[in-house]
């Protein structure tokens, strides 16, 4: 039999991750080496001469306890394939309106700016959504959310405030239509063209607002520049502070900062943002993310010591969060990333049941149900991150509605790579979906498979972290003598 497992080691021990049971099991070095060399193991464990008696006993015990099963998924098909139409037409959650495709900034790493080819994403343009499209989209959410108590309408750009009149019109309409449901509003902004009127409006309607601030002025203004080349930090922070003051106690919950970390910069300098008492003490949540090269024309070149500093700070934060090291000061970026790592670890929980015979890897949400992104032309996509130029990811249009068959194909994107998925140890924790699989105008097996090494690498890191957490009590606390 060929166990469905992944072997890995830490500095201290040897393990396997059992895909069927989600168990992370410690092994002896000799058993680890045997399983590394032998992908197939005999049914009769007692006949394995390469193993000592105690290893054979351990192997037999593991098999008897349900580990090392060779069971694999027979058919790749998402669990919601049969009721996708019900889900989309009754439980729609979120609508995101691309109110404009234009932006007043020309950020160097923006996937929508400065493009010379349109293989992976559209370019900024002067297109704006019209009221008819916005109204019909809101009606669509109303029609399809009969079983959803909480609905959200998000506004996306470009820079959404380039079309503030449409935002206001949409909110006023939705407020009337959604009586009986809890409707909330959200948007992401570069924060540079917010007037006092806009700021009051956001507060009055309790918007959830995500500001893009990449670091202190010296870092932020490298990338987030206006068309004339000048920086945008001052305006963004001034407006953030005004909004914060107006939100009062709501600010911590409703205002967030999106920090795009560019590895071309010095990580220590990025975190100098928190030398400013406002950022250090306001309690506003930070959502850091690394610039992705996936949709950029030019590869990002890491600054020499970026990885070292980034990894070290995150390690410190992890040690602090896990209670190994106490009393150290942490920057919110590293702390957030450490928390996210711990959450991922919590997601690897044993005994969630054997893999089904017919199921799909983790990754896709139900397109159009979790959220529906409507672009300025009125075309529908599963989310705002998707390549708007890819015909395969367009799941409908404001004039003819949601194409359920197409949404189902997007949901079952893993069927394109079924053979690879069935054998992949990251099956349960895969993050691949149509968002990153679309190249040019289609989703292909090749483009989907191109993401797999990074996804598996990330999952391997998560497994090692999960093992590290276990080792803390038995190894590290002893070593550090806590």
């Amino acid at each position, binding site marked *: 039999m060929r166990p469905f497992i992944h072997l890995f080691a830490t500095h201290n021990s040897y393990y396997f991750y059992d895909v069927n049971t989600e168990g992370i099991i410690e092994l002896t070095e000799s058993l680890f080496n045997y399983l590394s060399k032998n992908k197939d193991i005999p049914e009769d464990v007692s006949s394995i001469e390469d193993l000592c008696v105690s290893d054979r006993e351990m192997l037999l015990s593991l098999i008897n306890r349900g580990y090392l099963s060779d069971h694999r998924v027979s058919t790749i098909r998402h669990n*919601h394939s049969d*009721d996708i139409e*019900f889900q989309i037409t009754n439980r729609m959650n979120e609508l995101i309106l691309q109110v404009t495709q234009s932006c007043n900034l020309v950020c160097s790493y923006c996937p929508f700016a400065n493009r010379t080819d349109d293989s992976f994403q559209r370019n900024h343009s002067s297109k704006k959504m019209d009221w008819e499209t916005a109204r019909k989209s809101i009606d669509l959410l109303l029609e399809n959310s009969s079983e959803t108590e909480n609905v959200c309408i998000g506004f996306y750009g470009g820079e959404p405030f380039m079309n503030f009149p449409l935002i206001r019109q949409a909110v006023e309409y939705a407020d009337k239509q959604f*009586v*009986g449901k809890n409707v909330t509003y959200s948007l992401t902004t570069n924060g540079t063209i917010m007037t006092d009127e806009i700021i009051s409006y956001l507060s009055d309607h309790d918007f959830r607002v995500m500001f893009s601030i990449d670091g202190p002025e010296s870092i932020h203004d490298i990338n987030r520049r206006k068309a004339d080349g000048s920086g945008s930090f001052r305006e963004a922070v001034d407006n953030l502070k005004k909004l914060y003051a107006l939100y009062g106690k709501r600010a911590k919950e409703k205002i967030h900062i999106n920090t795009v970390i560019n590895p071309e910069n010095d990580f220590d300098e990025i975190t100098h943002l928190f030398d400013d008492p406002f950022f250090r003490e306001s309690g506003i949540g930070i959502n850091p993310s690394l610039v992705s090269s996936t949709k950029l024309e030019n590869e990002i070149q890491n600054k020499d010591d970026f990885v070292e500093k980034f990894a070290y700070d995150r390690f410190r934060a992890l040690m602090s969060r896990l209670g190994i090291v106490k009393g150290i000061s942490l920057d919110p970026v590293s702390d957030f990333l450490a928390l996210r790592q711990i959450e991922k670890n919590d997601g690897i929980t044993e005994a969630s049941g054997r893999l089904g015979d017919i199921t799909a890897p983790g990754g896709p949400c139900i397109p159009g149900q979790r959220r529906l992104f409507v672009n300025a032309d009125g075309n529908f996509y599963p989310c705002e991150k998707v390549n708007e130029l890819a015909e395969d990811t367009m799941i409908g249009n404001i004039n003819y509605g949601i194409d359920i068959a197409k949404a189902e194909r997007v949901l079952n994107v893993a069927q394109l790579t079924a053979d690879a998925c069935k054998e992949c140890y990251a099956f349960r924790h895969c993050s691949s979906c149509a968002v990153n699989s679309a190249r040019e105008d289609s989703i292909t097996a090749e483009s989907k498979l191109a993401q797999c090494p990074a996804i598996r690498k990330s999952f391997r890191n998560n497994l090692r972290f999960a093992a590290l957490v276990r080792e803390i009590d038995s190894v590290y606390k002893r070593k550090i003598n806590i």
Partner: protein
Amino acid sequence: MKCSVYPYSDDLYPLISNAEELVDHICITAVIYPIAWKKSIVHTSEISSVGSGSDFEKLSADTDCVIFADISRRKFMYGDIIEKAEFSLSSGKDVIFCTKIKNADEERLREKYPERNIIMKYANPDGMGEYGYRHEDINCAALGISGLYRGLDDVAAITGITSQFRKKNIRTASVTTNATLSLLGYYHFPSEIFTSGMEIERQVAALNAFFKDVERRSKCDIMLIQFPDGIMKFIPDVYDSYGVKTFMISRAIGIDYFVLISLLEILRPEAYECIRSMISGRFGFSLDSCLIQPVKIDREYSPEAQKILYTKNGVDKAYEQLGDLKEAMKDVVFSVYDDSTVYERITESCISKLT
């Protein structure tokens, strides 16, 4: 008195389907729902004498009174309710609140519209701590109704069974978690007891005092009680009461007959043997009837929604397997929710057990 009900949802269908049971000369002539609920309203067209729709102004125009239904689980509608109540009062109508409103709003409305009747129909939690630890015997029989998990529909069950007992001229008091059903003469369950901050023993004593009070006032032979929340926890990520409230009720009043609302994905006799033994072990009463609702749990999205979401499903499989269940547990009345005779059979079974 011609009344309209707002905001109406299908949970309140018994109000219009059991019109003859309405109390206080109430005659419901219109039900009004927010436009956002339109798609989930499926039953109103079956009652031709009741107008329905989303135009509040138009549909309430021809009525004497507007009844504001219990929205305790939809707090975000509070502002809309107050706005519409004020509109109704200013249009010369009376109002009945089955949903709790703030004292300040009540005072303001009474002061502004002194000539209008403003009636409160929800349980008043004031004085609930006065009972100390006293525990009184309750002499009437008690029938409990509960979903296995939170969110299974037990409103239809309590109204269906109540109607059957009333038809048999058995003095019946029904206790429900939905204050709007007080229009059918039901008593509103004082859920505030659970959040009162009183120590647990006093909460049980307060529940006992409430049930004793219902018995005294109604002089009932049987009390039907709709339990708040389910009797079991579903999964760790989703809030549910662990059956704690059921346990507390079972300490406050002896349950003589129990009706469980279950769901389609639990159809094996062995599962019901486990459930029966769990009910008896934890709560000390027996499983006497079981209604299977044609829904399945949406396991993927329930944790994300932080509540149990159900997906409707066909009942064919349930009917197929009902035979096995009936065979394995002959002393339990099993049926599927859409069975028109089921409430009569449950009532008969209850009478047979208790006499």
